[in-house]
């Protein structure tokens, strides 16, 4: 008997009845090439389980255990608007779902890497120091092709150290560095994003010891990185956001 492709896969996936299984086994005994494929497909299924079954044992994050409780203020606001304006419901859902966590996720990683590289630097943490703040902001604005602002984080206990220009996936990237009285540093990574972007809520990611809050606002992506607890960094990120959106 000639094996059909369908039978072969159904056999691998245990979706044949006993009679079908016997027929396929008999045919496979005469067809070494198909038998090798069956073995390979079974290995694929087994490998998927061996790699991903561990997820089943993980503790489910709280945000998923109570899925109606939105995480960030922006999400809460969206949900509230959603509840108030039934007619707009579908539209908002659409807007939320159009976020692109993958693309944005790689952005946060680049920010965390830039933070890890430059924040320990003792002698040359920045290219242009805060003493020349006006020049710094004008220079970075010119290179990114958009008007930038260096947020003032004095109230949060951080002073501007200065900034530098970095290469990013989509051209020039600006990095502003801040430091508190104990020398703990934060960096704000600002990149122009190609294509059309939707504004996103704050997203959080942890890259080794570096915590990152990142968001998209207009044509710019922002990432605030620092080795400090999530809630502290969120406080600073909120201040940055408010200053950029007065």
């Amino acid at each position, binding site marked *: 008997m000639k094996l059909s492709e369908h039978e072969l896969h159904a056999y691998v996936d245990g979706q044949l009845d006993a009679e079908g299984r016997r027929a396929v086994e008999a045919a496979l005994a005469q067809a070494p090439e198909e038998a090798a494929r069956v073995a390979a497909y079974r290995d694929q299924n087994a490998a998927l389980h*061996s790699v991903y079954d561990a997820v089943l044992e993980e503790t489910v994050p709280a945000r998923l255990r109570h899925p109606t409780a939105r995480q960030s203020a922006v999400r809460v606001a969206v949900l509230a608007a959603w509840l108030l304006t039934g007619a707009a419901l579908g539209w908002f859902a659409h807007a939320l779902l*159009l976020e692109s966590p993958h693309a944005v996720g790689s952005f946060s990683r680049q920010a965390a890497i830039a933070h890890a590289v430059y924040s320990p630097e003792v002698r040359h943490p920045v290219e242009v120091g805060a003493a020349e703040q006006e020049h710094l902001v004008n220079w970075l604005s010119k290179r990114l092709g958009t008007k930038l602002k260096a947020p003032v984080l004095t109230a949060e206990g951080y002073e501007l150290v200065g900034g530098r220009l970095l290469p990013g996936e989509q051209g020039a990237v600006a990095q502003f560095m801040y430091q508190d009285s104990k020398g703990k540093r934060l960096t704000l990574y600002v990149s122009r994003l190609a294509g059309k972007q939707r504004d996103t809520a704050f997203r959080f990611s942890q890259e080794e010891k570096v915590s990152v809050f990142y968001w998209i606002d207009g044509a710019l992506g922002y990432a605030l990185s620092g080795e400090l607890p999530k809630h502290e960094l969120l406080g600073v990120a909120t201040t940055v956001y408010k200053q950029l959106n007065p």
Partner: protein
Amino acid sequence: MTPEQIATHIPRLRRYARALVGDPHAADDLVQDTLERAINKRHLWRPGSDLRAWLFAIMHNVFVNQLRSRQAHPEEGLDDETLPAVAPTDGARLEIRDLQSALAVLPAEQREIVLLVGLEQLTYAEVSEALGIPIGTVMSRLFRGRERLRGLIAGAPVAPNLKVVK
């Protein structure tokens, strides 16, 4: 349908999402959006029907919407940061890297089906219903996906009995 009923399916939704998108944060975002949508649309669920298949159907819709929004960024590169949070032996690490990179190379429409069938063990009919496509299309994407995967991981060891330690 109660939130408790939905909750029993969360671990498997997370497993599927992790394999589908790679990055753990992005995967949980996908699960969260799926759960929220399911709760908002719970009146559309037919009591007595398979809740799990319904949840996979919702996740598919959410995922496809995300892909559309990502068309400006077609790259789906995977690197160390997106590997699952497991601490395996060197051999297992290789295995994860190979499998994850290979999966990431598959077109999303094939990856979904390879995972729903091979990992989540949905029947072909369930996949057809969850994705809203004819069973013939399910099968042809499954054939192509598995062949592609076989080509990608040929030469690399795929040990079926490998233990991944958490």
